[in-house]
Structure formats: structure tokens, C-alpha cells
């Protein structure tokens, strides 16, 4: 049997990709920035991801979700940006950096440090959940894992962060 006949390759249109880009750009940038560690790297990551998506759009299979496909590309591009920026993950620098707001208290500093220490899967799931408001199924597809794994990762991340918050509050 010809394998090409079995593949549900139907392609994504440029319009679909443009719609995804324009419709979600602030969210895409926010997630990419959080992963890559700087706004500049985040912009590059979103740009590179959509360049790749346009080039690969004919291989997109419509049995998957275009949104998840696009998020997967952005996450991967942002992770590459982090690697390109060398050595220590910039995320940890950014998250662990000094507070810039006069009114920002220890609570946020502690949360920043705690997020930086999370395992990568938990951190990525957290960013996609909170910065892009994605549901578990879309996050799972974007990260190439199962929805149950995402639920477990988010649960663990929540536990860590809640514990951090409680410790900060008990020290006040």
C-alpha cells in the first residue's frame, strides 16, 4: 500500500497561520519571552517559529490542532533561543533577578525563584496554561505529551508554588 495514501496530509493555509499569528501575538510573545528569558529573544522565537510553520505548512495534518502545532513551534523556538544565549538559562536570571517595582514584595520574588527551579515540563505547562490560557489537551499536544501528564505537571507546579506562597506569608 502506498504510504502516501494513508497520510492525512492536507496542509495549513497561509491565512490560517496569519490568523493564528495576528490573533494571539501578545500571548505568543509572552510565552516565548517567559521561556527564552527576554522580550527580544521572545520576539525572535515567535518570528522563527512562524517562518518554520509557513515553510512546513503543506505537511500539516488536519487531524491535529493548528493552534497546538503553532504553540509547539513557538515553544521549541523559544527553547532554542535559550540554548543560543548560552550557559545559565536566562529564564533563571530573569526570574531570579531583583525586583524592579517599589511595591513588589517578597512573595513575588519567592515565586519567581520557585518557578525558575521547576522542572522544565512543569514550567512550560505553567506558562502555556497561565500566559496563553490553553486547555490541558492543547498544552499536551503542544508539548508532545498526554493530557494526564499535563494535569500532573500543573498539579505539581501548583503545589510547589502554593507552598512557596505559604512560606512567605508565614514569615511575614
Amino acid at each position: 500500500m502506498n504510504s502516501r495514501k494513508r497520510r492525512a496530509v492536507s496542509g495549513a493555509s497561509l491565512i490560517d497561520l496569519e490568523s493564528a499569528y495576528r490573533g494571539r501575538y501578545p500571548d505568543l510573545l509572552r510565552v516565548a519571552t517567559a521561556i527564552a528569558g527576554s522580550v527580544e529573544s521572545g520576539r525572535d522565537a515567535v518570528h522563527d517559529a512562524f517562518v518554520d510553520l509557513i515553510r512546513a505548512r503543506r505537511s500539516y495534518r488536519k487531524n491535529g490542532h493548528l493552534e497546538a502545532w503553532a504553540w509547539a513551534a513557538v515553544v521549541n523556538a523559544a527553547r532554542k533561543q535559550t540554548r543560543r544565549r548560552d550557559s545559565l538559562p536566562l529564564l533563571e536570571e530573569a526570574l531570579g533577578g531583583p525586583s524592579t517595582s517599589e511595591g513588589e514584595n517578597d512573595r513575588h520574588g519567592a515565586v519567581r525563584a520557585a518557578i525558575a527551579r521547576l522542572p522544565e515540563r512543569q514550567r512550560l505547562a505553567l506558562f502555556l496554561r497561565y500566559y496563553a490560557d490553553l486547555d490541558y489537551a492543547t498544552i499536551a499536544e503542544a508539548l508532545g505529551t498526554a493530557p494526564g501528564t499535563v494535569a500532573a505537571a500543573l498539579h505539581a507546579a501548583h503545589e510547589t508554588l502554593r507552598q512557596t506562597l505559604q512560606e512567605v506569608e508565614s514569615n511575614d
Partner: protein
Amino acid sequence: MTERDRSIADSLDELFPRRDEEQGDWDGVVADAHSGRYPRPSLAPTRRRRAVLALAVVAALTVLTVVPALAVSKGWWFLRDGLAPKPTSPVVVAINPQPAGPWALIAYLADSNGRTEICYSLTPSSEGSSGAFGACGPGALGEPNLSSPTFATGGGFAIGPTTLDVSVVVAELGDGSTVQARMATAPKALGAPLRFYIVEFPADAALTQIVGKNSEGQVIGTITVPDGTEMHQGS
């Protein structure tokens, strides 16, 4: 049910606030996607600079459209005449997508005694290099503290580079009227974060000023065009 924790959400909001004012650069994405020389992340900058000269067709103002019958295959006049500096970057090309008014803008980086310049030219018709003009210079409209950004004008067109901060360029004519320029974002392959403006105005009108504004409408660069300027090469 997908869980969200309010206190965690608040903390995350403060870490990386949403930047609603940013809308991205879709035209640039499309341009780079169609550019055969879009630099891949694995390419070191030095290797990128040594890349063989290539023509990268750029979707400039809208999505890439059918290329009009410009002299693409004959080579660009700007490079043929032997007077223009040799490119040190890929040559990028923007094509007017409207068949009624075909023109092609090319741009590339060049070295001028150790100084990087941006070279660009416009071929305003499909009749070979008739009416073509161009310039090279180091400064783009919108660069802070820059007194003389490079620009070029000829045959009812004015063109030049801007910084990415410039989102709107308006040309003022001698009779007080204004014309808004078309903008083309240079693909990454060029190696410089630039946009280009292309203003078309009546050939018998006098161009007096070129004004660059940011997305909030603030003027961030101005070029005063000397009287009688034609095929001007600013620097």
C-alpha cells in the same frame, strides 16, 4: 476542568506582563519564509556573512504576489553598472504587488572603508532599468540624533531605510499635501533590522519633507529635501 490558581496567576502576571501594544510583524515573517537565504539559527554570523550572494524575493507590502515582468532575470542595474559597492549581505527584493504600478526595490549591505552602509535602489517600471535610481548611506530614518538619514528620490518616487521603530512615513509636497508611504520590512537575511519606505507622488510635484512616525504617531525622524533634489544620494 482546567485549574488556575488566582494567586499564582497574579504572580505570573507581574513576572511577564502581557504586551498588548505589540502586534508582531507578519509581513516580515512571510518575507523570511519565502527567502531562500533566511539565516538559520545554526549558522554562525561569520558564516552567514560569507553566504553566497542570493536573490531573496520578499513579500513587501502584502502577502507575496505574482512578480510583475521586471528585469529580475537580467540582473539588477544597481549591481550591473559597476559603480555601486559590492554587497556584503544577500540582496533582498521587494516587489509592488499591484500590476498597475510595477516597481522593484532591492537592498543590501555594503562595506565602505570599514563602515557598513545600506544600499538600495528602485526600478520603477517593467522597462528594464529605465528611471531606476538608488543610493547608499549609513543612517536610517528614525535613528536617534541622526541629522541626515540616507534617502533617494527620482521620477516621482522617494525611498529610504528606516529603523523598526518607524511604522508610518509621510511625504510632504510643495503644495502642502501629504502622501503616505508604503512600508516594507527587510527580511532577516539582510542582516540589518530595517524597514523601507516607498513614496509615490506626482512626478511634477516638489517633495519637501519626509517624516517618520512611530506606532503612536510621534515623529521620530525627519528629512528635509533640498529644492530640486532628483536622484539624490543622501548620506
